[in-house]
């Protein structure tokens, strides 16, 4: 699920009702146009999306083609972001890397959204042993410094991109489970849930029709806010040499490659992938704030 899909989904709730969807859409537009920062975030997001989808077809150079004669060239018209130690075009590499970085982040967030969200909602709603088991798992994960645990998991499972996705999802699990649990718990005793029991709804139906739709928007905000962290986490892992291997273009590994040239003044090798990374994280954080405004019922209707 990308954030673009979550926007309409956050507003209208479970069953799409045209009227409500329309007001929510209007509200979303109002938030976007009323807040220039959110507008910028959306623009950035579409740029990222564009790079991820069209990047490999649109870049001027082959991101893997080395040209040692032109190694470590400062930015110029021919190479706007300069070239790296093998003479590869950094602009092309930065653009092409978007797809991989986004895929890793999105895949891990979708995974944890599904697992953590469900586990948390079940724990909060049913309580009892479900709650204890989920709580114990979350607590155990939380007992580790998260990045360190991610390192350990990747080291144990094997040094692959898939495992980076899994590790990132695992370390984010408590965040989602706890949020979903807290929200479900509050609503479990809410009047409308009690009322639904009286009107003959079974527990599972209540969970699906009463609780989940009311929690999803809050979770969607969380998705956007965690996307940034997921990107950073994955890039951090590849920075220390886990997951992605050279010569695959990926922002974290490109910064790592550029690190050794910083002390000798070749700043562009690390700067541009670093900036791309920063912009992506920045974009998702702003988007999260914007989504929160859309979801916040106090600003609706």
């Amino acid at each position, binding site marked *: 699920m990308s954030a673009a899909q979550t926007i309409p989904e956050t507003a209208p709730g479970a069953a799409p009702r045209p009227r409500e969807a329309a007001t929510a859409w209007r509200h979303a537009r109002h938030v976007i146009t009323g807040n220039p920062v959110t507008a910028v975030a959306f623009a950035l997001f579409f740029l990222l999306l564009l790079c991820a989808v069209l990047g490999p077809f649109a870049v001027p150079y082959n991101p893997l083609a080395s040209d040692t004669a032109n190694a470590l060239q400062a930015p110029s018209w021919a190479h706007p972001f300069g070239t790296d130690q093998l003479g590869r075009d950094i602009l092309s590499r930065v653009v092409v890397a978007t797809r991989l970085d986004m895929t890793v982040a999105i895949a891990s967030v979708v995974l944890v959204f599904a697992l953590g969200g469900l586990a948390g909602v079940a724990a909060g709603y049913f309580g009892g042993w479900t709650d204890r088991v989920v709580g*114990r798992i979350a*607590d*155990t994960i*939380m*007992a*580790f*410094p*998260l*990045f*360190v*645990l*991610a*390192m*350990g*998991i990747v*080291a*144990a*499972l*094997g*040094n692959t991109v898939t495992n980076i996705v899994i590790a990132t999802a695992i370390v984010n699990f408590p965040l989602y489970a706890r949020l979903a649990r807290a929200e479900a718990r509050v609503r479990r005793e809410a009047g409308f849930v009690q009322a639904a029991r009286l009107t003959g709804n079974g527990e599972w139906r209540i969970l699906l029709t009463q609780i989940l739709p009311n929690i999803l928007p809050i979770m969607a905000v969380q998705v956007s806010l965690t996307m*940034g962290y997921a990107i*950073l986490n994955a*890039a*951090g892992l590849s*920075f*220390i*040499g*886990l997951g992605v291997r050279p010569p695959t273009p990926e922002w*974290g590994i490109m*910064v*790592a490659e*550029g*690190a050794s040239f*910083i*002390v*000798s*003044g070749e*700043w562009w090798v*690390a*700067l541009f992938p*670093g900036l791309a*990374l*920063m*912009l992506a*994280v*920045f974009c998702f*954080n*702003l988007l999260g704030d914007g989504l929160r405004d859309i979801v916040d019922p106090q600003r609706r209707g």
Partner: protein
Amino acid sequence: MRTVLLRLLGALPALAGVILVTFLLTRVLPGDTASYFAGPAASAESIAQIRAELGLDRPLPEQFFRYVAALARGDLGMSLTTGQPVLADLTARLPASVELTLAALLVAMGIAIPLGILAAVKQGSWADHLCRIVVTAGVSLPVFFTGLLLVYVFYFILGWSPAPLGRLDAFASAPPTVTGLYLVDSLLASDIETFRAAAAQMALPVATLGLFALAPIARISRGSMLAVLSADFVRTARASGLSPRHVILTYAFRNAMLPVLTTLGMVFSFLLGANVLVEKVFAWPGVGSYAVEALIASDFAPVQGFVLTMAILYVLLNLGIDLLYGLIDPRARMGA
């Protein structure tokens, strides 16, 4: 005192969980641990023999028991790269990491808490705007990237800081070890020269880590201060004519610190992780860079030792935070 004991007891399940998870991580190592130890040219018999030696042919519970027993003896295995016991390596390198992390945390708290409070008290002022910029930038900047930027500006362009290569430059010698923290040890030895050298080396990595920790602390400080300032009891205090200073410091501040304290646990988690990245950027001889080197060399015992050490450290830090929380909040004391 009883509360302290209770909290200690409360930390036990977390500790047990940490040890169990670390054990499980050792068991799902890529490929076969025994064939890894035996080397690429080993025969099937020698692999089986090694497996028996390592106890890998026993049932999992027994293996776990052996693992815990080894832990109790302080046996974390041997490092293939350094040829030393992992425990010895870790203890030798831990002070460097601790010094870095603590200094960064102190710097971050020293700036972020006043900034966050000021931003909340004077909404819309320069402090509020600065706070917002710091928070947004802080969460978006990859910590390794900040480090490299600082190196480029302060080392390459301005030449203000020494080369980013470790705790002391080649010409200085380490102070006599008391705590292992160079800043403290050099002061204890009244060695101002070494203190200055160590401080100069630390400035950039501490700034990098500090910037990273700044954002969450500032954000929570501002948020919780705002919440507390609009609380009923602050209104009562204001309606009683108490001076703003008194209201903010005695009434609002102490209450606002409770969520900050809780967040500190999360910040520690981030810091201990970011530490690894910063140590790599600055060639800092701490446990983080040790683990990274081992990781690249596919030397797994140090990595596991590192993960376990960090986790235990983190559990202890959280315990400290809990105790501190109980000191401030009487309600937490009761509910222990």
